[in-house]
């Protein structure tokens, strides 16, 4: 469909999530696209409604009421084009309803083709249920058993560089055929299988998978050479299959597909697209995180390479107990600056898991939940760093100059020193009572180094803007910059470890704010600097500390203020907390005070009295 971009003044976008459908309205105001109104309604893919368009119409109706603009026809469909103050010119949507896109991937070697296949699937916005490879330490019958148990929406098979192994690839196909995985949409569903491996093995793979329950698609090899990934064709095919098969089986999506002016995208895929668009436009490295109740998604763009990971069981409600189990309770409690009874806490965590919609009422409860969030984010970022690597298996050409270099293939491309922008979204980060809390959860969990801008997605509109960036990049970029991101400020942090109280770096700020100071190791300081203020910070690190130019070398950065301000972080990297509980509590207390984290909260004496009486 051809869209005349010059004549688009009103854009309507929806994101159909598992529980809520969110609609936003974007309008051209004085020649610039701005997000103007927002509405939401429960998603209606489950019975008794079983039609996603009902939730869409409801959320759009809310927007229409707020905007004073009719956006739907009498039959609930979207009113287009915009005319006389009613309707819209463009309607787009994303979806993660019904659990999103669930995939199983397979490759010959776990660290090579299987890893590339996983990257392709995650990049397309899928949840990867399992990765099967010939070296995953499971015996073939165990692999078959696993495939049988899973209920994926589709399978991606890769393996072999072009001209490489055919036998191992065909062996994978031979495992999948007898396993006959049951799709979750019922026995009538033809299982889509995408083959993106060695082109020489295509015919044999086709023969092995010649079953009436399989719908096989063959695309270009996603790893044609060891040193080259070609994920585009596989990602595109995943997207096509998602629309043709998965969406077509979800209730009401055939109608919704007719309504939209562009293909419906999986929500995380759309978030990845907008971050890539921004990274490309500004020439920066970006990390984005979306922490939900069940999962945490981490997206990164470093040196134009995009990666996405989903930490399936790291979340703040359904998965809160798993975070505590994986991180261990002492690691969670190190972020809490007062004593808590561990037995009682364990019960509280489980009660949150079984009643996931409850919210923290007391300050104590909020602080504990934010401590859990720090650990969930930290673990998710570790998983992301392990996954976002240079290609493994590539032969290294070393020269004499590399004699002492320890660099190997497969090292992480995530470099916190080169990170320019860290974007937060998801309930615990977005709805924190104070933005200082959001900023500190980010800094403590991600440990940015050097100079890093911190921001949060104001109302979770990145998915909408992701799909919009595919249709109208200019509008997406304008709204992202003006309305989507709330800049929290900038974090200046030194890499290195020293002795508490000894000098870490001296700094001076010149510009809209002019001041200077010395940051000792272990210090954490907040400088007030408003959203519109800019300045240049010059840092003189002590020996062994690096702020971007190398250890001990002076460096200057342009910094922007924000709702929080400028964070001067001399706590060192990696960030280590005292092991002694008392000492740790004192350290955290100082940081909490310096960052004014919980200043606006009060401990309600009445509440404590009531508990005591009851």
């Amino acid at each position: 469909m051809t869209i005349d971009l010059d004549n688009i003044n009103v854009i309507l976008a929806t994101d159909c999530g598992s529980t809520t459908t969110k609609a936003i309205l974007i309008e051209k105001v004085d020649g610039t696209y701005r997000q103007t109104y927002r509405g939401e309604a429960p998603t209606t893919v489950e019975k008794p409604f079983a039609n996603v368009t009902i939730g869409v119409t409801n959320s759009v109706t809310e927007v229409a009421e707020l905007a004073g603009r009719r956006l739907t026809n009498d039959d609930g469909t979207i009113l287009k084009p915009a005319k006389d103050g009613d309707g819209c010119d463009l309607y787009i949507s994303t979806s993660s309803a019904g659990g999103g896109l669930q995939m199983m991937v397979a490759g010959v070697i776990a660290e090579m083709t299987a890893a590339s296949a996983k990257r392709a699937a995650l990049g397309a916005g899928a949840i990867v249920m399992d990765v099967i490879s010939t070296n995953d330490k499971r015996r073939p019958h165990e692999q078959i058993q696993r495939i049988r148990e899973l209920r994926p929406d589709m399978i991606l098979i890769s393996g072999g560089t072009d001209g490489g192994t055919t036998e191992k690839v065909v062996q994978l196909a031979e495992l999948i055929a007898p396993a006959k995985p049951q799709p979750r949409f019922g026995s009538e569903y033809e299982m889509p299988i995408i083959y993106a491996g060695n082109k020489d093995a295509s015919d044999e793979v086709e023969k092995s998978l010649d079953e009436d329950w399989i719908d096989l698609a063959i695309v270009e090899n996603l790893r044609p050479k060891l040193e080259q990934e070609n994920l585009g064709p596989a990602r595109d095919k995943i997207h096509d299959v998602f629309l043709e098969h998965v969406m077509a089986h979800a209730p009401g999506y055939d109608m919704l597909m007719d309504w939209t002016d562009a293909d419906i995208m999986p929500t995380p895929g759309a978030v990845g697209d907008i971050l890539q668009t921004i990274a490309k436009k500004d020439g920066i490295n970006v990390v984005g995180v979306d922490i939900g109740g069940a999962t945490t998604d981490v997206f990164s763009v470093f040196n134009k390479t995009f990666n996405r990971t989903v930490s399936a069981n790291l979340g703040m409600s359904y998965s809160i107990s798993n975070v505590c189990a994986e991180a261990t309770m002492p690691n969670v409690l190190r972020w809490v600056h007062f004593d808590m009874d561990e037995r009682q806490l364990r019960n509280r965590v489980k009660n949150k898991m079984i009643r996931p919609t409850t919210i923290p009422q007391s300050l104590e409860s909020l602080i504990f939940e934010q401590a859990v969030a720090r650990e969930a984010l930290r673990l998710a970022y570790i998983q992301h760093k392990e996954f976002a690597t240079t290609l493994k298996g590539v032969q290294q050409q070393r020269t004499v100059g590399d004699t002492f270099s320890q660099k190997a293939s497969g090292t992480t491309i995530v470099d916190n020193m080169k990170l320019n922008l860290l974007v937060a979204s998801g309930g615990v980060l977005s709805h924190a009572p104070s933005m200082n809390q959001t900023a500190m959860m980010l800094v403590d969990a991600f440990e940015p180094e050097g100079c890093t801008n911190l921001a949060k997605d104001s109302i979770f509109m990145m998915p909408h803007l992701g799909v919009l960036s595919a249709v109208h990049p200019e509008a997406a970029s304008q709204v992202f910059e003006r309305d989507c991101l709330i800049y929290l400020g900038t974090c200046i942090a030194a890499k290195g470890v020293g002795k508490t109280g000894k000098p870490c770096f001296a700094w001076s700020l010149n510009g809209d704010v002019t001041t200077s100071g010395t940051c000792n190791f272990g210090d954490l300081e907040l400088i007030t600097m408003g959203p519109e203020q800019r300045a240049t910070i010059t840092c003189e690190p002590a020996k062994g500390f690096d702020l971007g130019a190398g250890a001990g070398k002076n460096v200057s950065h342009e910094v922007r203020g924000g709702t929080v301000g400028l964070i001067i972080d001399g706590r060192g990297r990696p960030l280590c907390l005292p092991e002694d509980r008392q000492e740790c509590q004192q350290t955290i207390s100082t940081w909490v005070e310096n960052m004014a984290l919980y200043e606006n909260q009060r401990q309600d004496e009445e509440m404590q009295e009531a508990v005591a009486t009851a």
Partner: protein
Amino acid sequence: MAHAYTPGLKVTSRMTYQVVRMLPIKGEVNVKVGDTVEADKIVAATYMPGDVYPLNMANLLAVPPKDVASLMLHKEGEKVEEGEPLAQTAGIFGKFKKIYKSPYSGTVETISGVTGQVILRGPDIPVEVKAYMSGKVIDVNPEVGCTIENDAAFIQGIFGIGGETFGTIKIAVDSPDQTLTGEDLSQDMRGCVVVGGARMTDESIETARKYGVAAIVSGGMDDQDLRDFLGYDLGVAITGSENKGITVVLTEGFGDIAMATRTFELFKTFEGHEASVNGATQIRAGVMRPEIIIPLAPGSTEAEPEHSGGFLELGKPLRIIRDPYFGMIGIVKALPSDPHVLDSGSKARVLEVELSTGVAVIVPRANVELIEA
């Protein structure tokens, strides 16, 4: 807004309840519409295709993959017994033949000329589906399963461990706020559904398991005890497939929390009745809670409306489900419409609750659940 919908767990002394019993794959349904069945009746059965055993025959015989098919003593579709020769090399001048004996019984499913891999399919695995609840078969889906209906008292738990079971209801404590200990249990509770009051101790679960109790139901338990019982820390609330020899159901939550009086009284009313219990819990999209179903004789009492949540209204009884007032019972005293700043600093819509002690407290609406007095 004076009304806000608040979820709650379903507890009712009589309702018409249906259970759908389905096979994972097509098979045979052993009942017909109108049949009356007991909980342990096998209503449908089938055979699942057996386990698959891939054998890399080319490697095992040390021959090229393309030669494997000609060396197989059993062709595709043929049955082979464990220990029976499955393939044999040509040898040298007809001698020194290498024979490979089948490590499993099964059927040769495929022989690949590309990889030299032979797929052996083990014997079919029988799958049986029991009625689970006694009642009348009201619908049969040929080759798939059936629907059984009965009048029943129904109690939904908040969290459980273990799958479907059934037994006679036995009350082990005197009051809903009494902790269930090992001393409250006895050997004659074998095969029963034992009901406690407040927290069940780890010792009570262990004793119940030792006595062969089918299921144990109580208000709460400590997470530490759950970890000891399971042998690991439960990360995600997806349960039902644990094989611990007993089904455990909590009606209220974790910690030392009394069973709701109404729930306890309902159990007392039906002491001695048969009950079907399922501990399976899934707290994700499409939530699944544990359940206790007590089938009833038709028409002995009037069906009552079920209580599974509703609208917050002045005077309605409720339970607070989050700290600092976790587990406390009270009534709705006021429903202010404006958002309130909580002690945590967050803004949320709240209600005023008059606790059973007479003290009034402010609580977020998200942190209460309606109960019946």
